[in-house]
């Protein structure tokens, strides 16, 4: 994702909010700070796909549970906007922290996942981060990742998809412990950019891996 927008003073990130609760949409709109510009809203799967195609936003804030479509919710919106995945990033929002909801929407292509109880500042930061092409992990998502991939590091640090490298594990652990990216960077004596690249690598593995354990883990939780 090289076409990351200028997030400096001049340019504002174009955002579409997809959620079936009007109250939540307006609350979220009020929460987003001046760095963002809400260009569209939608309440169902069909509306969302149409609005996203029409406005081509940089970030879509996407509720995992949505009415309409074939009942697939947020996953279906991402699938329906497949052609835009290169330019539009999806950030999943949910009240549910059930593993199946979170992991299925991530595997569909979302760049991150946050719970709806997140504060206004945090959601704004998360949107900027996703707009910059990075991944946003909540502690709980990091926990799911550790659960799914296991906590033992890969023996050789090649880019195999089935295991996390020792460094990625450390990053995930710290995020699960409630550390912000900045705190993770400080703790591990690396730059925030490096932390972000580790997180993106983990996200890619989570999306692409067909590792046996991951499949089994998903099957146990009825994800497949």
């Amino acid at each position, binding site marked *: 994702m090289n076409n990351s927008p200028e997030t400096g003073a001049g340019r504002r990130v174009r955002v579409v909010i997809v959620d079936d609760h009007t109250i939540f949409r307006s609350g979220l709109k009020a929460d987003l700070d001046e760095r963002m510009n809400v260009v569209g809203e939608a309440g169902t799967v069909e509306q969302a796909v149409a609005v996203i195609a029409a406005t081509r936003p940089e970030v879509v804030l996407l509720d995992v549970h949505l009415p309409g479509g074939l009942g697939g919710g947020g996953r279906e919106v991402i699938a329906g906007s497949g052609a835009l995945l290169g330019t539009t990033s999806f950030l999943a929002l949910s009240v*549910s*922290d*059930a593993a199946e909801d979170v992991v299925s929407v991530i595997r569909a292509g979302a760049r991150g996942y946050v719970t709806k*109880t997140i504060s206004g500042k945090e959601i704004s930061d998360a949107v900027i981060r996703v707009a910059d092409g990075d991944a946003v992990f909540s*502690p*709980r998502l*990091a*926990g799911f990742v*550790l*659960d799914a991939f296991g*906590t*033992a590091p890969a023996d050789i640090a090649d880019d195999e998809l089935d295991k996390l490298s020792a460094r990625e594990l450390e990053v995930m*652990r710290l995020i*699960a*412990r*409630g*550390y912000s990216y900045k*705190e993770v960077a400080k703790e591990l004596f690396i730059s925030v950019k490096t932390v972000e690249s580790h997180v993106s690598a983990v996200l890619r593995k989570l999306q692409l891996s067909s590792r046996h354990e991951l499949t089994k883990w998903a099957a146990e939780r009825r994800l497949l």
Partner: protein
Amino acid sequence: MTTVVQRPTLVRSSDRMIAGVCSGLADHLGWPVKFVRLGMILACFAGGAGVAFYAWLWTMVPTADENAKRNARRPASPIAPAVSLAPASGATGPSAATTYDAGPSPTVAGAPPASGSVTGNGSVLGNAGARPVAEPSAFGSAASPGDGAGSRNWAGSWDEATNGTGSTLWSWFTFRKIQYGKEILLGAALLLVAAILIARQFGVDVPLGTLIPAAAILGGAAIAWMQLDETRRAGLVDKTKADQAGGWTRLAAGLALVVAGVLVMVSGSGSWEQTWLALLASIAVLGGVALVLLPWGLKFWKDLETERAGRVRETERAEIAAHLHDSVLQTLALIQRRAGSEQDVIRLARAQERELRSWLFSDPAKESGLLADRIKAVAAEVEDSHGHAVEVVTVGDTDMTDRHEALVQAAREAMLNAARHGGGTVSVYLESTAGSTEIFIKDRGPGFDPDAVPDDRLGVKESIIGRMKRHGGTAVINSSSDGTEVRLGLPSISPDASDLRNSDLRNGEQRNGEAKQ
């Protein structure tokens, strides 16, 4: 009924020779079992009175289990612990339960034991009005509307269709709405039988030609009615179609006996030739009737099945409604009343959210009592008492041991400190692997200097560090102006062990070193 003595309820005991009737009766009356059994056997020789009495008790008296199930009330509302801090939550328990039981849920019959066993008298009577064949109060609780009511309906209509005496049975059905009506009728019938038998003993001429067919009818009816034995019926419901065959066989045998008896009685002669002829004729008639009624019967059966499925759905809906009523609605009411206090509102909302989450997403099959669940429970407790959110993330899980209990207690102390001094959200991370278990408790408070804590403050020194050391674990406190993190580690294997542990310890030390600087 004149005694005021409190007697144990009449139930069929599990200490049984045949069906536990005698020992149950002995318990109830306070007599020795031996005498009761002997009396019963003697009574059997008195013209079979004992047999009849025994059979009657067998059908009518529930087993101890059934009785307990029926009397069991719904367990306390699941929200109770979650909003326990709220004064008004006391009202959510029993009163709400009664509202829903007597109210819109016509569901007691098909319900799973947990909620189905609530049957107060109210709901049973409520059912009686709605059903074509009233459920007797004695059989209210675990009845499956499909099987039970269905076959009884059939029995009833067959009896009526085939012969005049069936009307007695039919009136019996209608009488059942009266409490104990059935028992009173049966008692009267038995008394009558006894009177006839005694009269015969005294040489009064009682026509056997009438009595034997009558006995056949009663026997047949009894066989058909055996299905009312609740344990059997529960079994039928459990094992679904496979065992229904048994039920139908029983019904058919009963019917055959009744029909034969009736025919003999009606023909009056007792001669076999005539009886055979009549039997053939009536079978032909019955076959014809069956042919005509079959489509109707099938439709009826289908409707019954549909109704049953609907009832199951209704049960589920009612259960969800009851849950929401007991939890969410109560909490919302509380929130409205305390809208002034932000702290209270947040606390209530958190507690409710947690409760609803655990209800929606928890896996009932998963065994509880494991470490992750304990930590979550402790976190919930801290959250309730201090009003700060405690976010728990767990990876892996392990069985609880004494050492893990110590770990939980140390973690609890750390969470309490974090909530008390840190303010804001507390993050808890539990990671359990084969080699060790680690818990991290992080807050974003102003921080403190662990070395500057005075010796008389036992919270940190004793409850956290000391406790972990005593159980062969480690505790490191890392505090800065950005917040405090307590790291607890507990190797899985006890101190006298292997390489694995050593490497773990080394890892632990390494990490401790890291934490120190």
